[in-house]
C-alpha cells in the first residue's frame, strides 16, 4: 500500500535519521527512570515494522489540552523526536497544520486505510447528555459531529485505544459531582455502545509524558501492557505513593508537616492522598525530574478512578 510506505520513507527522508538508529538510542538509555524499561533491544525491528502500519489519531473531547501539553514535556525521547521519528501522528487538533475539512477528511481517510490497525488516543471526557451537544468536534460532509459520534465511529475501527488523562480514562473533572453534561470515560462509553476494542487507561491530571510515550511504545512493540483492575499499565501505576515516598521514614517516626510550606515531614495531616494513590511519581518526578507534588505540597490522587471527588477536600486528611 502506497500510503503505508510513504509515512516511513518520508519521515526518514525529512529527518535524515533511520528509525532503527533512533530507536537504538532510546532503548540504550540507562535504566531507572525514563521509558527504557518498556523496550528490549530485540524488539526494535518489531517496533519499526509496527510503526509503518500503525498511525496515531489523537482526538480531544471535554479536555483542557493539559495531557497534550504534558506530552510536549517528554524528555527521552524528546517531543521533536516523537513527532518526527517515533510515531506517525496523523491527527492532533492542537498541533496539526490542517484545519476544517482538510483535517477531517484526512482523519477519516487514515481511519479507513488503517482500519483495525491505527491507534486512537482519546484526550478528554465524552459528554453523552443532550445527544452529545456539549462537545462538537468538527464538520464532516457538511454534518456537525459530536464527540459521541466520533468516538463511536473511530472506536470501532481502531486497533487499540489509549484513554489519556483522568477525563478520558474515568471521566475526571467534567464527570465530578455537579456535572450536567453526562461526561464519561472511554471504557464506560464503550460498554454503553458495545464496542469491543481494547482500551489502555493512562490516567493522571495530566499523565506524566513517560506514561503516555511508554504505553504507546509498548502497544506498538509488544501489544497490550499488563493492566491492573482499573485498566492502567502496571509498570507505571503498580506501586503505592505513600509506601515509596521519601517522606515515609518521617511518617514512621511520627514527624508530620505542620503547614503547607514545611519542607520536612509527612504530608498526610495536610491532606496528602499518597496512601490511596498508585503511580511512580515518587521516583520518576516531573518536568525532567525537577520536582513532584508531594515534595512541593500534597498528592491529590489524580491517577485514581474517583478523582476528583474521592480525594476531595484536597487539603483535609482522608
Amino acid at each position, binding site marked *: 500500500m502506497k500510503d503505508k510506505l510513504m*509515512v516511513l520513507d518520508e*519521515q526518514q527522508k*525529512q*529527518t535524515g535519521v533511520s528509525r532503527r538508529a533512533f530507536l537504538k538510542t532510546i532503548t540504550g538509555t540507562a535504566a531507572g527512570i525514563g521509558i527504557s524499561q518498556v523496550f528490549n533491544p530485540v524488539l526494535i525491528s518489531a517496533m519499526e515494522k509496527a510503526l509503518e502500519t500503525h498511525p496515531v489519531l489523537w482526538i480531544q473531547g*471535554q479536555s*483542557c*489540552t*493539559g*495531557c*497534550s*501539553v*504534558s506530552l*510536549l*514535556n517528554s524528555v527521552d525521547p524528546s517531543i*521533536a523526536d516523537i513527532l518526527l521519528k517515533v510515531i506517525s*501522528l*496523523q491527527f492532533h*487538533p*492542537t498541533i*496539526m*497544520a*490542517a*484545519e*476544517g475539512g*482538510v*483535517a*477531517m477528511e484526512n482523519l477519516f481517510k487514515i481511519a479507513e486505510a488503517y482500519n483495525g490497525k491505527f491507534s486512537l488516543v482519546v484526550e478528554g471526557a465524552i459528554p453523552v447528555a443532550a445527544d452529545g*451537544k*456539549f462537545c*462538537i*468536534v*468538527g464538520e464532516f460532509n457538511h454534518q*456537525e459531529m459530536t464527540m459521541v459520534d466520533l468516538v463511536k465511529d473511530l472506536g470501532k475501527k481502531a486497533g487499540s485505544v489509549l484513554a489519556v488523562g483522568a477525563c478520558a480514562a474515568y471521566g*475526571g*473533572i467534567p464527570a465530578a*459531582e*455537579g*456535572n*450536567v*453534561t453526562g*461526561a464519561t470515560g472511554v471504557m464506560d462509553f464503550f460498554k454503553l455502545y458495545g464496542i469491543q476494542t481494547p482500551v489502555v487507561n493512562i490516567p493522571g*491530571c495530566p499523565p506524566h509524558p513517560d506514561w503516555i510515550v511508554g504505553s504507546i511504545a509498548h502497544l506498538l512493540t509488544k501489544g497490550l501492557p499488563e493492566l491492573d483492575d482499573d485498566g492502567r499499565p502496571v509498570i507505571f501505576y503498580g506501586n503505592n505513593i505513600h509506601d515509596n515516598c521519601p517522606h515515609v521514614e518521617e511518617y514512621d517516626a511520627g514527624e508530620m508537616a505542620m*503547614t*503547607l*510550606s514545611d519542607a520536612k515531614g509527612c504530608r498526610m495531616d495536610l491532606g496528602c492522598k499518597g496512601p490511596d494513590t498508585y503511580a511512580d511519581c515518587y521516583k520518576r518526578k*516531573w*518536568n*525532567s525530574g*525537577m*520536582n*513532584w*507534588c508531594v*515534595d*512541593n*505540597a500534597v498528592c491529590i490522587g489524580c491517577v485514581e478512578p474517583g478523582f*476528583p471527588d474521592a480525594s*476531595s*477536600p*484536597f*487539603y483535609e486528611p482522608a
Partner: protein
Amino acid sequence: MAGCKPQAAPVGAGKKIKIAIDPLTRIEGHLKAEVEVKDGVVVDARIFGGMFRGFEQILIGRDPRDAIQITQRICGVCPTAHATASALALDDAFNVTLTENGRIARNLILGANFLQSHILHFYHLAALDYVNGPDVAPFVPRYAKNDVRVSKDINDIAVGQYLEALEIRKILHEMVALLGGKMPHVQGIVVGGTTEIPTREALNAYADRFKIVKKFIMEKYLPIVYLLAGPYGDLLKTGGGYHNCVAWGVFPMDSAGNTLHKRGVFTEGKDYPVNTALIKEYVKYSYFDDATTGLTPSQGKTVPAPDKERAYSFIKAPRYNNKPHEAGPLARMWVTNPELSKIGQEKLGVKNMRDIGDAAFSILGRHVARAEETAMVAGAVEQWLAEAVPGKETYVSAPIPDSSEGLGLTEAPRGALLHYINIKDKKIANYQVTSATIWNANPMDDMGQRGPMEQALIGVPVPDTENPVNVGRLVRSFDP
C-alpha cells in the same frame, strides 16, 4: 510552497459565499469559524464555541481551597493563570495578606508560564499559518494553496526555531515546576501564598534555565516576528475589530498591589479606570437560559440550555459598559503603553506601544504585541529573581471563613481573567469565571453587537475561498 500570493481576481465576484472552518485547529479547545465572503473579503462572521464542561456547577458545595486545583483544569496551557486568579479570589475572601516572598514566588511561577504560553502560541500554534513544516504528519496535510510567502531559507530557519522552541517551552515548564511542583497543573499556588519556600539551589536552577530562554526570546522569537512583517506586511492592515481593550493588570510589583501591566479599560478611543460592576455577561445567542442574561459575575448564573434555537455558542458574551472589548497581549500592551524593545523601536521607528497606532490592531499587530510582551515579562523575571530571598516564608495560613466573597482579577497569557467566589457555611455557594477566550471568542450579544473576534474578521481578505488561510490567521492572532 513559498511564493503562493493571493489571487488578484476574487472568485465569485458580487456573490456571497459561506465558509465553515470546523474544527479550527491549533487553539486550546473547540472552535468553529463561519464567514461570509463577498468580493474577496469577509462581510459577516460567527464564532462557535463548541464545548461545555460545567466547572461553575461542579465547584458548588466544595471546600473553597479546592477551587485553585479544580479551576486550573479549565486550561492546560495556562493553568497557572487560573490558579493565580482563583488564589487572588480566595486571598480576598479569606482576608489574607501575602508575604513579600510569597508574592515574588507567585510571580516567578506565573511569569515562567507566561513566557511558555507565548512561545508555544507563536511557534506551535500560529507559525504554521506563515511557514511550512516538514512534509510529514502532523505538518501535512495542509491547504493546497496556503499562501506561505517566505523564501526556503527563511522557512528552514523558522522550522529550526519551531523545534528549538519545543525545547525552550519545556525548559520554561521546568522553571514553573521548580517552585510550583509540576506542570501542567501546579500544586504550589495556594490561598495565602505558595507552598515551596525557594532554596538558593532552586533559584539558581531557575536562573540558569532563564538565561537560555531569554537569549532565545531576544535573538530568535522577537526578530522572527518582525521578519514576518516583510512578506506579510498587509496583515498589519487587517483584522482590527473594535479597538476596545480590557486589561485587569498582572504581576504585583509591591505589597500595595501595583502591577507590571496596568489595570485599565480603553473604549472608543478613551482610557477609563476599571469598575467591575460594569462587566455583564449576555447569553441571547449562547446556549444558556435567557433568564440569566445581563448579570455581573457576582450575580452570575450558569444554566446550560443546549437546545436553545437561537443560540450558536457555549461561550457567554461579556461586555464592559455594554460594549465588546478584546483581551490579550495587545489589550494589555495598549493599556500599559510601555517602551518597545530595542529591536521593536528600530524596526517600527516608534518608541512606545501606542505609537504604533492603528496597525497594532491587526492580525500581525497582535503577534508583535505578544512578542514585545514576552520581552517585557522576561525583564521583570530578572527583577523577581533578584528580589526572591532564599529560605524566607512564602505562605500564610488562614482559616476558611464561614461566609465571605472574593474577587480575583489577573491576566492569563491570552488575556483578562476574573474569578469570583462566594462562600457560605465554609463551602462554595457560587463561583464564576470570566476568562480571556470568553472576552474574545464570544457570539453576538443581546444588543446585536458581534463578539470581538467576529468583528475583527469583517474586512479580512479571503481571495481564495477554497483556501481561506486568513480566517485562521485572524482567529489565532487572539490565541483563543
